[in-house]
């Protein structure tokens, strides 16, 4: 059964029918937002059953759309939190990515700006590495990007999508070794992105991120994970009731290779490892439970089939 990421949008009336349906079909609801009288569900559903959901959602005016970024956690790396970079373009991009299902976190560097003085510390590096993709938002000058990029990417193991002021060819020329994605003509600007051409640029950023995410999905498919992150999410929600008291918008953040559990590591690492998934196989057997560099959260890294020899 292939699960595909989709977003369901509809009225609050009878939306539980859709939720029950998704669960009955073997899908998972990753995030649920209720905004006024509208419900947005970001979920994984079986590929063959999308039409069925559409048919059942039709009388209650629900819409099902493809959302390739559902179930990914993306780091939007902004050079600083100053007025120079915020709210435009960093927040604009972070928000736009969120609309199509990704969980985006803004990672702002302590010493990001400048040319010679730019740097990346170990905490920033580790936090970025905890994400699925890092989107670097750099400035307008080729010279500066060429000079500082080697410093800013040192130790980064996740795919990088680079956004900068110079056009794409220039970015490709100056970055060596190449990064996974490039979006040119998106450097520093100080106006809200609301015109059609600016929104097209944001679409371009999203398309590039999607391309990189798809490539990573294909890589993962070659050596599949021992258990689906969405399944683990459901299981943790069921077996660790403390997660229900967490007030964060996404207490369990699904990633492509694992999930972030927003509970203190010291107290909850052992109970998490002991959760039984199926037939005596515990979570600790198929995943690594590690402390996250983000607050005192827990990072569950699911091991691939090649290491555990089990897929459940």
């Amino acid at each position, binding site marked *: 059964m292939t699960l595909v990421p989709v977003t369901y949008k509809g009225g609050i009336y009878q939306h539980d029918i859709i939720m029950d349906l998704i669960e009955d079909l073997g899908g998972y609801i990753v995030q649920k937002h209720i905004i006024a009288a509208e419900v947005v569900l970001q979920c994984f559903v079986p590929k063959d059953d999308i039409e069925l959901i559409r048919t059942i959602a039709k009388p209650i005016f629900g819409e099902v759309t493809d959302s390739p970024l559902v179930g990914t956690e993306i780091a939007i790396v902004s*050079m*600083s939190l*100053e*007025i*120079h*970079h915020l709210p435009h373009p960093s927040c604009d991009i972070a928000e736009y990515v969120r609309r199509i299902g990704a969980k985006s976190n803004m990672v702002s560097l302590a010493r990001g*700006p*400048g*040319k*010679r*003085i*730019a740097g990346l510390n170990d905490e920033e590096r580790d936090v970025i590495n905890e994400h699925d993709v890092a989107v670097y938002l750099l*400035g*307008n*000058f*080729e*010279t*500066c990007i060429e000079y500082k990029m080697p410093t800013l990417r040192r130790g980064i193991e996740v795919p990088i999508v680079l956004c900068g*002021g*110079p*056009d794409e060819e220039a970015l490709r020329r100056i970055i060596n070794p190449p990064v996974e994605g490039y979006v040119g003509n998106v*450097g*520093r*600007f*100080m*106006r809200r992105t609301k015109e059609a051409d600016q929104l097209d640029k944001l679409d371009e950023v999203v398309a590039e991120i999607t391309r990189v995410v798809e490539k990573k999905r294909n890589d993962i498919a070659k050596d599949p994970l021992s258990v689906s992150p969405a399944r683990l999410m459901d299981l943790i929600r069921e077996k660790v009731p403390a997660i229900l008291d967490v007030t964060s918008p996404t207490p369990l953040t699904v990633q492509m290779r694992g999930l972030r559990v927003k509970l203190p590591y010291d107290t909850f690492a052992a109970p998490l490892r002991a959760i039984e998934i199926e037939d005596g196989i515990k979570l600790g057997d198929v995943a690594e439970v590690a402390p996250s560099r983000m607050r005192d959260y827990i990072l569950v890294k699911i091991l691939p089939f090649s290491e555990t020899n089990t897929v459940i």
Partner: protein
Amino acid sequence: MAALEYFEVECPEPLGGEYYRQITNDVLLDHNLLKVIEKLHIYIDPRVPVFVAVGTLRKITTIVRVRDFANVNPLEGKITLVISDETYLAPMLKIFWETFGKDHVEQPDRFTVMLYDVKMDPKQIEDMVVADPSESLFRDLIYAFRCVAPEGFRLRSEKFAKDKFSFVASENTLAEDIDALVVTKFALIGVKP
């Protein structure tokens, strides 16, 4: 950028220069400073790196008086002020409190202020000076250029006079001959030191 007589951004990277032209335009527009600046020349060289902004200023004589944003209506021992723009409401109330005392000033809603038992002529009230925007002009200009200049350029040298200004920023120690560079940029807009 129609309000400026002269506006140029000089940069070895043409595309980068174009972006900085846009940024400058947006920032000056946001901070309402386009009316103040007459000529502006910006020079950025990311290779050095250095950011230089030189320009001339227009004379500003816009003192804000009560009559500019309020209608003063005297009626049966009380004076009613109908406010059309709230921007200067707070400083105006402060001046009224100091001049007439809090007992004589009342504000029933956001756009109305009433003065009771005030001896002053309504004409005089209309002429009262509420604010002088030129007081904070240099501060606003410096803030605006800090927003325009690349963020890493934290070593700055600013010179603001009544009719002209220069703003230099870099991430390295400013070169000793930086003043000579500023003079050449001033020459481009026709200003002699």
